[in-house]
């Protein structure tokens, strides 16, 4: 039996109103690759942030025992000193700096008052060789691809004398070839005695590389599976642990809503990345939505769902968009800009309500009317009374909890903010509503109310596209489901045929390129 390198005992971490981690126990043996799997929001990243000191000692309950000692990390520097290094999902490199400068950023080589550049670059080259990257350390980071950038991140971690390396979704932005190379690199590190934790959605990769798999669900560790045997653990076995939650009456029924003609139809829709135009973010997608229908689009993060919706919504994302679109049976060409999409009666309710959706420094009233000011003004002069009446109407309709519609949106809870966002787009009177993660980060009660609003919209004959990475929600709310992975639609199912297992299996199958 190998030595236990890391043990996290009874970790509980509470955010205002939410228990993100509930009494989690987690053990990592020396020299193994340990995988942490679970749905989005299950608590994997929170657990790793506790471990690396991003959430300092005292903000959580429980103990971290590393190498036999109880550790109290106050900053990320404290954990790095002991060799615990985390590589985040989003690459944290400065594009305008060289590889060498990036690797020693905040950890500069040389004296107090002068950086020793010769030492920096020679040491950097040494670590680059270890990760199998043939670039010179004087190359600018912006000049190398994402696969190589991921390797630079690993070299940077090695330069910090890492003993326990944590990789959070290391392959999420890599193609098949680069991913495989990275996993093999991990296996070679293991041979040299390095301990690693990998967080990943791609279960095929997990079963390929990991010795042990811990499943996290709803802020608790569910089970730990041994994967060191001859036969790798089957993906179905892991999925069962990930999704095995009971489904009670969390979704209101939608009854007798007649489904009409096709309202929105896109064919062969392809969108390229705005910064790397050679990359296809959405690849040849064809879909349709009928009046009164709720269509779910399920996929993991980074599958291209948001990009698809935003490119339909007045090309507000992406470049080189191709494909054809029909609204109500007539071919349309929407010009660039949200205004033209709104004119075509499309609404896009963003997943990022604080970043892209609401003006937090303004009132509920101002936010409600923002996308449709014409309706309450004449000759561009706003009728204040009418605006107030509209805001009041939607406050009642959506049950927004606030003393007055003059309240600043920044002071509302997440659920109420989401309702204001919905109010804004309902007031814009669209026929087609693209809802992107409409229940992200809000509590169960508010979720139920949002589901009721979605049902009302469908009953009013609107067509609703609901993008979500919560499988139960997609299953519970949709009439029809499209499954998306890596920019492509990999399946379409009627709600009654869909189960969590067969959707997951579709995604995993397509991920392996079969």
């Amino acid at each position, binding site marked *: 039996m190998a030595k236990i390198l890391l043990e996290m005992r009874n970790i509980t971490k509470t955010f205002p109103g939410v228990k993100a981690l509930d009494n989690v126990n987690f053990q990592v043996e020396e020299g193994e690759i340990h995988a942490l799997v679970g749905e989005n929001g299950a608590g994997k990243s929170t657990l790793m942030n506790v471990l690396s000191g991003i959430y300092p000692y005292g903000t959580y309950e429980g103990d971290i025992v590393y190498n036999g000692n109880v550790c109290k990390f106050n900053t990320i520097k404290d954990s790095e000193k002991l060799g615990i290094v985390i590589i985040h999902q989003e690459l944290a490199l400065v594009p305008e700096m060289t590889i060498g400068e990036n690797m020693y950023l905040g950890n500069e080589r040389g004296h107090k008052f002068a950086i020793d550049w010769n030492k920096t670059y020679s040491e950097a080259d040494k670590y680059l060789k270890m990760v199998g990257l043939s670039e010179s350390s004087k190359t600018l980071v912006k000049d190398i691809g994402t696969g190589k950038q991921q390797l630079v991140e690993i070299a940077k971690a090695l330069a910090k004398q890492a003993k326990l390396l944590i990789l959070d979704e290391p392959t999420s932005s890599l193609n098949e070839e680069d991913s495989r190379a990275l996993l093999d690199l991990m296996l070679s590190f293991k041979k040299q005695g390095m301990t690693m934790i990998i967080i990943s959605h791609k279960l095929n990769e997990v079963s390929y590389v990991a010795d042990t798999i811990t499943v996290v669900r709803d802020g608790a560790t569910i089970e730990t599976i041994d994967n060191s045997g001859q036969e790798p653990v089957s993906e179905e076995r892991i999925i069962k642990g990930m999704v095995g939650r009971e489904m009670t009456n969390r979704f209101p029924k939608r009854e007798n809503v007649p489904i009409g003609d096709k309202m929105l139809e896109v064919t062969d829709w392809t969108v390229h990345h705005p910064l790397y135009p050679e990359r296809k973010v959405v690849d040849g997608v064809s879909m349709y939505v009928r009046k009164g229908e709720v269509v779910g689009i399920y996929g993991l993060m980074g599958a291209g769902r948001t990009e698809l919706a935003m490119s339909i919504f007045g090309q507000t994302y992406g470049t080189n968009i191709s494909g054809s679109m029909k609204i109500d049976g007539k071919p349309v060409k929407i010009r660039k*800009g949200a205004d033209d999409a709104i004119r075509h009666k499309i609404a896009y309710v963003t997943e990022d309500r604080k970043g892209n959706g609401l003006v937090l*420094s*303004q009132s509920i009233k101002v936010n409600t009317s*923002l996308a449709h000011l014409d309706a309450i003004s004449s000759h561009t*002069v*706003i009728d204040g009374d009418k605006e*107030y009446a509209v805001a009041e109407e939607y406050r009642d309709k959506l049950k927004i909890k606030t003393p007055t519609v003059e309240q600043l949106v920044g002071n509302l809870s997440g659920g109420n903010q989401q309702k204001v966002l919905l109010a804004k787009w309902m007031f814009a009177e669209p026929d087609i509503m693209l809802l992107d993660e409409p229940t992200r980060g809000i509590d169960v009660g508010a979720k139920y109310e949002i589901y009721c609003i979605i049902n009302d919209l469908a009953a009013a004959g609107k067509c609703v596209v609901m993008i979500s990475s919560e499988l139960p929600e997609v299953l519970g709310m949709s009439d029809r489901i499209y499954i998306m992975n890596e920019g492509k639609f990999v399946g379409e199912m009627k709600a009654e045929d869909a189960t969590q297992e067969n959707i997951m299996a579709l995604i995993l199958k397509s991920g392996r390129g079969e």
Partner: protein
Amino acid sequence: MTMSENVKKAPGFRENLTEFMQKYKVGSFFQKYTMLIALVVVTIVFACWKGKEGLILMPPNITGLIAENAYVFVLATGMLLCILTGGNIDLSVGSVVCFSGAVGCTLMASGTNVWIAVLIMLAIGLCIGTFQGFWIAKLKVPAFIATLAGMYAFRGFTNVVMNGLRVDITNETFLNIFGSGKGSYIPDIIRNTNEGINSWFTKDNATLLKLIGENYITKFNVTCMLIGLIAVAAFILLKTRKILVQKRLGISQSIPGQIVSMVLISAVMLWFFFKLACYRGLPMVLIWIGLILGIYQYVTTKTAMGRHLYAVGGNEKATALSGVKTRNVYWFAYANIGLLAGLAGILTTARGKGIDPTYGEGYEMDAIAACFIGGASAYGGTGKVSGMIIGALLMGVINKGMIIIGVDANFQKVVKGIVLLLAVMFDVLSKRQKR
């Protein structure tokens, strides 16, 4: 654990104070009216200064305060719209003031019609603003850089136009309408035409003598006072209507609080017009300032463009996704400040009775300071015309007060700097509390 429980059981003085502050919203009152309170305090301090008691409140000083700061009000109005879009500023306005003034003065000196010259000055400002706005909005050059370039270039153009020499204006019409000399006041039509009323204002009329004081009674401007009374009546009428509408719609605003503020504002307005009437009457510049402030108060609060300015500054991405052409909003803000810089050029040259190549230097900074002191956020999205007015007045009172009590001219800028720093610090701190 037990410690904190004990504290909960026996609330100390601190808890009581906090509770009191929350109940009567003391914190938010101070937060909302800090600069107004500062203005009142500063005025009182200067008014009570030993040896100079009440000097700052003398009618000539009140009129002077308005006339000297006319350019600040006009430029700060334009600057406020730029700052709203996200803390962007326009550094070129000082140079644009001087350039448009230089062209206008040169034209008038060579005999061009006054009104044509005035229109050309406004057009120059608008063109420059539109041009800079194009760089900022369409080519996405940072506003700071684009207007810094304009600041150098138009100062240079001024020197080219004027050959580095002063140009004088002799045209009486121009000076009377836009200037602040003896002729630039609304004449007392009532006393000039009505002998009956005119005869009241002698030192023999005991009631009026007591009311107005013997220094001013013979010159008291009845027309100005009447305009003041009409303005106050209109204000009360509009405010009452607003309160009634709010009551009907059930907007929960404190009605007694609003009535108190209405009475106070009316009183200040009456006092202000009384002071003006005691000196020479209603100055023409005040009419221009009032017109500009009124128009932009309306634009920022009632129109779609005003709403877009706030929304872009609050969250540009969300605004763009709501179908607003955000680039046009930037363009509007910069074209607009150019136009107002043209107007400020007219007021400045009329006040100076001509143009010097150095006119307008530092004006941009005065305008920026007035906005930030008046509560505009350095990050954009918040700020009001009314706040900006208070900011401009505060700077003006401090300037004037320091001159009256004889502070060293070199030190005056130090004080201005400190006031600006404190005001912005307050803005940042009050934002941090909310998070």
